[in-house]
C-alpha cells in the first residue's frame, strides 16, 4: 500500500468505516511509515477534540418554541369565542337544537358501540379459551418476529404488527389464524411464565382509542386501536401484568411507526 492510498483510507480507519481486511492493511502500512502514523495519530486527536460537548450547540429555547408554535397543534385548537351578537344568538339557538340532535344520535351510537364492545370482549375471551384446547394454540411456532409476520401473508388482508417482547418479559411463541365477529384475524401468541397471552389483531372499525382493560369470567382483556388496527389481548394474568404487556406493546408500536 502506498502513502497516497493510505492517507485516504487512514480517515476511514479512524472513523470506524473500514472493513477488517483493509483496516489491517492500513494499520500495517502505518506501522512502517512514520508520516502516515503521525497523520493517523493527529486525525484521531482532532476527532477526539471535535467530539467535545462544548462544540455541540444547543438550539435556543426561543427557536424550539417558534418551531413548536408553527407546527399544527397536537390537539385541535379551541375556537376563540367572540361576544354574541343578536344574530349570533339566534344562530346559537339553531345550533343548540342541532347540537342536541347530534348529541342524541351520539348517545345511540355510544350505547350501540358499548354493546358491540361487550360482545367483542365476549368473543375475544371465547377465542382465547378455544385456543387453549388441544393443539389449537399455534399455527406457526417461532420466537422470531420475522418468521411469524410473513406467515400471515396471503392468509389475511392485513399485515399484523409482530413485535418481540422477550426482553421485556413476554416471550413471543408464535401466531395463529383465528376468527372474531365472523372475520379472520391474526392472533399473536405470547407467554408470561406459564400464562398464555393471545393478542388478536383485526382491522379497526372506529377511530383510534386509548387502551382500556376489561374483565370477563376471570380473564382480563386489554383493548387498543392504533394506526388502523384493533388490538385485543386476552389472558389469565392479572390486570397489572396485562397492562404492562399493553404498555410495552404500545411503546414498541409507536417506536416503529
Amino acid at each position, binding site marked *: 500500500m502506498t502513502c497516497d492510498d493510505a492517507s485516504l483510507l487512514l*480517515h476511514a480507519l479512524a472513523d470506524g468505516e473500514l472493513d477488517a481486511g483493509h483496516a489491517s492493511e492500513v494499520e500495517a502500512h502505518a506501522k512502517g511509515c512514520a508520516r502516515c502514523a503521525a497523520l493517523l495519530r*493527529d486525525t484521531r486527536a*482532532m476527532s477526539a477534540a471535535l*467530539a467535545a460537548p462544548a462544540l455541540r450547540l444547543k*438550539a435556543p429555547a426561543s427557536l424550539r418554541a417558534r418551531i413548536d408554535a408553527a407546527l*399544527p397543534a*397536537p390537539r385541535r385548537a379551541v375556537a376563540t369565542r367572540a361576544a354574541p351578537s343578536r344574530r349570533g344568538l339566534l344562530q346559537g339557538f339553531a345550533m343548540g337544537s342541532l347540537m342536541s340532535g347530534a348529541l342524541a344520535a351520539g348517545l345511540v351510537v355510544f350505547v350501540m358501540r358499548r354493546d358491540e364492545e361487550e360482545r367483542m370482549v365476549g368473543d375475544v375471551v371465547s377465542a382465547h379459551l378455544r385456543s387453549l384446547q388441544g393443539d389449537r394454540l399455534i399455527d406457526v411456532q417461532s420466537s422470531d418476529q420475522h418468521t411469524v409476520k410473513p406467515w400471515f401473508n396471503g392468509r389475511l388482508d392485513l399485515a399484523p404488527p409482530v413485535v418481540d417482547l422477550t426482553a421485556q418479559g413476554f416471550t413471543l411463541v408464535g401466531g395463529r389464524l383465528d376468527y372474531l365477529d365472523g372475520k379472520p384475524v391474526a392472533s399473536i401468541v405470547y407467554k408470561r411464565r406459564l400464562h398464555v397471552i393471545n393478542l388478536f389483531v383485526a382491522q379497526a372499525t372506529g377511530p*383510534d382509542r386509548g387502551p382500556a382493560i376489561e374483565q370477563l369470567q376471570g380473564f382480563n382483556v386489554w383493548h387498543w386501536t392504533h394506526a388502523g388496527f384493533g388490538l385485543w389481548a386476552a389472558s389469565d394474568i392479572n390486570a397489572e401484568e396485562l397492562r404492562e404487556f399493553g404498555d410495552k406493546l404500545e411503546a414498541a408500536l409507536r417506536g416503529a411507526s
Partner: protein
Amino acid sequence: MAQGSDGEDADRARRFRAAALPCLDDVYTLARYLLRNPTDADDAVQECYLRAFRHFDGFRGGPIKPWLMAILRNVCRAEFARRSGATAAEATADLPDNVVPLWQEPEGSPETEVLRQRDADTIQALLAELPGPFREAIVLRDINDLSYREIAEATDVPVGTVMSRLARARSMLREAWRKSESEPRLEGRSQ
C-alpha cells in the same frame, strides 16, 4: 370526513414532532457552523423544519437526521442565492473535486510532536476558517456524528467524494492547528 382528515393531520404532526424534534440540536449545530451567525442559523433551522413537515410524506423512513440536514443545506443555499451576497459561493457551493488543492501536506511536518489540546473557542475559530464544503464535511462527521453513508445522503454526493473531502478538510485543519500553536492565542491577536 372533516374529522377524519383532522385526525390524520394531527397524527401526522404528532409523528413529525416525535421523529424530527429530537434532532433539533444537531440541525441547529450544523446551521451555526455553516452560517456562522446565530440569527441566520435560527431562521434557517425554522424554515428547514417547516419545509420538512410539508414534505414529511415524502420521507422514506430510515434515520431522519441526514434527511433533515439535506433540507437545511437547501434552505441555506436558497437563502444565499436570494441575497446573492459575496459569501454565497463560499458558504454553500460544492467545489469541483478536481479543484487544485489549497493545501499541501507540509514537508517538514513534525512527526513526533503531538497536537496540543485546544479549547472550544480556538477549535471553533479554526473550523470557521475552512472553506464551506470542507467545514461541512468535518462538522457532519466529527461533531454531528454521521456515518459516511449518511453524510453522502445529506450532501447528495457519492461516498468517495465524502472521503476525499474529509481527508482534505482534516489536512487543512491539521495545518491550521499546528500553525496556531506557534502563534499567540487567536482571540488575542485581534486586539
